[in-house]
């Protein structure tokens, strides 16, 4: 850069007075000159210009940069001015066209920055702006570049500039189109679609072929993205339904208040976060970890109380249980509404869960990723509890033959309460996870109850693996129906499909063998 700087020495200072003319076209020329000057001060001047921190005095023909702390420096020297500034200072105006030019200029300036991340961003900026005048800087940067990723983007940027340039040969343009095509993202597509129509026919044909190619690739990525969304929705459904699979599937209890257990879990998260904000803000990143056991306990205890207080009197009467638990859900909702108000409560996201990771054409939000992992862990843990613990053994025993279990000294009442508590506690855990992606309001649970019932019924009652498959199938099916039918119609279509499915296989996907239904 030093060589370039020397070659154009002086032109930086020469360009400055043009900023004092208060004319957009003069400013534009000045930007190009400053960018080409190679002066070490050029970047900070352009940044200031873009942030409306470039000040001029028409009377003194001087330009100042206002630093972020508010002090004025002389743009020509970079030193802070002594004494008071001139009386007639004003900000140098820019418009959108100039902003693009500034960005391009900055891009070319940072193309050789020491930090590869900055070079990459600069190359991307050049790709988008593809201003002709950056070409020399680009060529130079390409020569010097060693990082393969930056190199690739640089060559893409160069191709973009070549494409935009009037006097590039048709052959070179076709080569450039290949490069842009290989980039294959929305920006590449926009660039190709934005090419002027008066290009030579072979170039146009290449461009069309390339954009069709990109569209196909993007469609494929769209499919992957949909599958990802579906997986994500499926994991949410799994979390909501898994507790239900215990209470409904294992115990045969229709718990309409199941959604409210989820809601209690979400509110527990809210309370935990409030407490942390008030007492130990440093622990915020751990708030969910702290909320998880508490939510399990809160929802689980409420579950035990419901089972002992109401449901135990209604065993063998599923329809009555359904009504009574619906009543409980109304009471729980209204209690929470009274305590926390009817509106949505803000639940924060810990830093490790926020952000997006790009994987090819796939944008993966971290909170969704964590929820998928969490759903998997909860599912596995539950399977483990049922299969390997004494509680699980007793639960299965009571489920299969109550009187036999009872005569083998299993306290069936206690097992009922614990089973129900376990199912409710898992709903509480789901609430912690759902607080990250859904509105935490008293109605939170309502939106999940029908879906979770459908998952359990679809997967096959009493079959946890069925619940897993059911949740994922419904999640993915929902997301793939959406693009065709829209969100609401997609949902309706799915409901209708599940209704038809239940007609066909009333015992769900993984029904135990045996012929059809009996009341």
């Amino acid at each position, binding site marked *: 850069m030093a060589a370039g700087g020397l070659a154009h020495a002086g032109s930086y200072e020469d360009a400055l007075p043009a900023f004092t003319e208060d004319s957009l076209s003069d400013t534009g020329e000045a930007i190009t000159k400053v960018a080409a000057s190679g002066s070490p001060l050029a970047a900070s001047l352009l940044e200031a210009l873009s942030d409306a921190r470039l000040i001029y005095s028409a009377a003194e023909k001087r330009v100042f940069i206002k630093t972020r702390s508010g002090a004025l420096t002389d743009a020509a020297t970079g030193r802070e001015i002594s004494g008071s500034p001139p009386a007639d200072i004003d900000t140098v105006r820019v418009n959108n066209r100039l902003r693009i030019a500034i960005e391009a200029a900055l891009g070319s300036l940072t193309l050789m920055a020491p930090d590869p991340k900055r070079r990459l961003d600069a190359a991307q900026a050049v790709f988008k702006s593809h201003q002709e005048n950056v070409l020399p800087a680009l060529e130079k940067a390409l020569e010097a570049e060693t990082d393969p990723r930056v190199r690739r983007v640089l060559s893409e940027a160069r191709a973009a500039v070549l494409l935009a340039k009037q006097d590039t040969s048709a052959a070179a343009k076709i080569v450039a189109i290949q490069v842009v095509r290989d980039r294959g993202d929305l920006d590449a597509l926009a660039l190709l679609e934005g090419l002027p129509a008066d290009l030579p026919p072979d170039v146009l044909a290449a461009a069309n072929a390339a954009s069709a190619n990109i569209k196909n690739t993007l469609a494929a990525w769209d499919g992957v993205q949909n599958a990802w969304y579906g997986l994500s929705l499926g994991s949410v459904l799994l979390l909501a339904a898994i507790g239900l699979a215990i209470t*409904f*599937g*294992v*115990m*045969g209890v*229709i718990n*309409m208040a199941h959604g409210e257990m989820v809601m209690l879990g979400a509110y527990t998260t809210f309370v935990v976060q409030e407490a942390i904000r008030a007492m130990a803000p440093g622990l915020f990143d751990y708030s969910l970890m702290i909320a998880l056991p508490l939510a399990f306990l809160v929802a689980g205890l409420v579950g035990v109380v419901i089972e002992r207080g*109401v449901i135990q009197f*209604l065993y*063998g*009467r*599923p*329809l*009555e249980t*359904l*009504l*009574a638990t*619906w*009543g*409980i859900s*109304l*009471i729980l909702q*209204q*209690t929470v509404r009274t305590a926390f108000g009817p509106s949505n409560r803000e639940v924060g996201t810990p830093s490790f869960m926020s952000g997006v990771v790009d994987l090819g054409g796939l944008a993966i939000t971290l909170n969704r990723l964590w929820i998928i992992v969490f759903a998997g862990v909860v599912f596995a843990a539950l399977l483990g509890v*049922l*299969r390997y613990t004494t509680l699980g053994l007793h639960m*299965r025993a009571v*489920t*299969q*033959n109550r*009187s036999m279990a009872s005569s083998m000294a299993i306290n069936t009442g206690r097992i009922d309460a614990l089973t129900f508590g376990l199912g409710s506690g898992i709903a509480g855990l789901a609430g912690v996870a759902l607080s990250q992606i859904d509105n935490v309001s008293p109605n939170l649970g*309502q939106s999940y109850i*029908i879906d979770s*019932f*459908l998952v359990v019924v679809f997967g096959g*009652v*009493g*079959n*946890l*693996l069925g619940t897993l498959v059911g949740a994922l199938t419904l999640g993915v099916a929902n997301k793939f129906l959406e693009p065709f039918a829209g969100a*609401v*119609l997609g949902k*309706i279509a799915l*409901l209708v499909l*599940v*209704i*038809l499915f*239940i*007609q*066909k296989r*009333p*015992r769900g996907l993984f029904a*135990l*063998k*045996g*012929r*059809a*239904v*009996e*009341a």
Partner: protein
Amino acid sequence: MITRRLLEAPDGRGWQFLAILAAAAVVVPVLNVFVPQSSSFHVTTTTVALWGKYLCYALLALSLDLVWGYCGILSLGHGAFFALGGYAMGMYLMRQIGTRGSYAHPILPDFMMFLNWKELPWYWYGFNHFPYAALMIVLVPGVLAFVFGWFAFRSRVTGVYLSIITQALTFALMLGFFRNNFGFGGNNGLTDFYDLLGFSVRAPKTRAVLFSLSAVALGLGYLLAQAVVRSKAGKVLIAIRDAESRTRFLGYRVENYKTYVFTLSACMAGVAGALYVPQVGIINPSEFAPGNSIEVVIWVAVGGRGTLVGASLGAVIVNYLKTMFTAGMLAPYWLFVLGAMFVLVTIFLPRGVLGLLRRGQHPGNQPSAGADPSNARGLTPPAASGLAGSRASSTPSHSPCVGEGRLAQPAE
């Protein structure tokens, strides 16, 4: 002959009920229209409209009791049939607005103008004629119930499974009606009505007549339901409720009986909805809300499941309480009361208020407290009374199916 069947159906309590309805249908409008407002005997138009609404709810409860109380079908989607009847009436009322709407279009309702629609969707055709609308009020809920029942009952979807898919049905309809492009006014639904058969729906006299009509409709609905219940087919329905497979083994096509009674009940709910809409002046998609349909169940449960008078009574009691609570400062507590009602009635009052009054007497055709326990109990050996039990599990030694996350089935 049909009239004779209808008239010989009611018992003593039934006649009392009909007499009260008849008296109300005559006396209330008279007290409203002809007695001066200054008189203490005057009944305000607000009260008339309110009680007219209760009567519509009572008819809805009656229709639900017919399927739940007498045939064991716990429909959690009856609000959908009520709302569909209401929409059919609403569509007629919308077409009567004519040029009086904000956009003053002679044919298109305001909301369609607002959406820039150029012509009436085909399914709105004919709704300017009252007889056609009246037909649709019965036909649309009826056909939906028939198709739904045809599929569900033929595949032997019963018990809670049926309840849940009826719930999903009304939920799906709600989502649909919320959409603007469905052509039913989206969120706002249908409202700002003017005329019904040339009479202003806002006029007190029309309100009074609508009240009477609601009372008459409830009375007729009662007679019809009672006639069905008292017939031999009614005995079959109760047999199905108490022991479905046993009935099937006697050669009755259970699915036909269920489809029949479900369809009839949906038609009655549709009529209730149609009478409801002009009295409250609006129909919107929230009528399809799953919670609404479940609330109807508690009306029936409070009044007394399996007694037609009880179901009607329950609807009036619960809704009267609701009005009392939600009007005053007790409003925030209403949901507690309603919730507690669900819990307490199912545990302590399985036969409802009427069952309480009737305690010690001949229990007649009241269902046993349980849903349909005799069904499961009677036909499956105790060792395998799980859901999976079903037909397959009649062998006591069938249960080697545990493990791999596959757990035994809930009892039904």
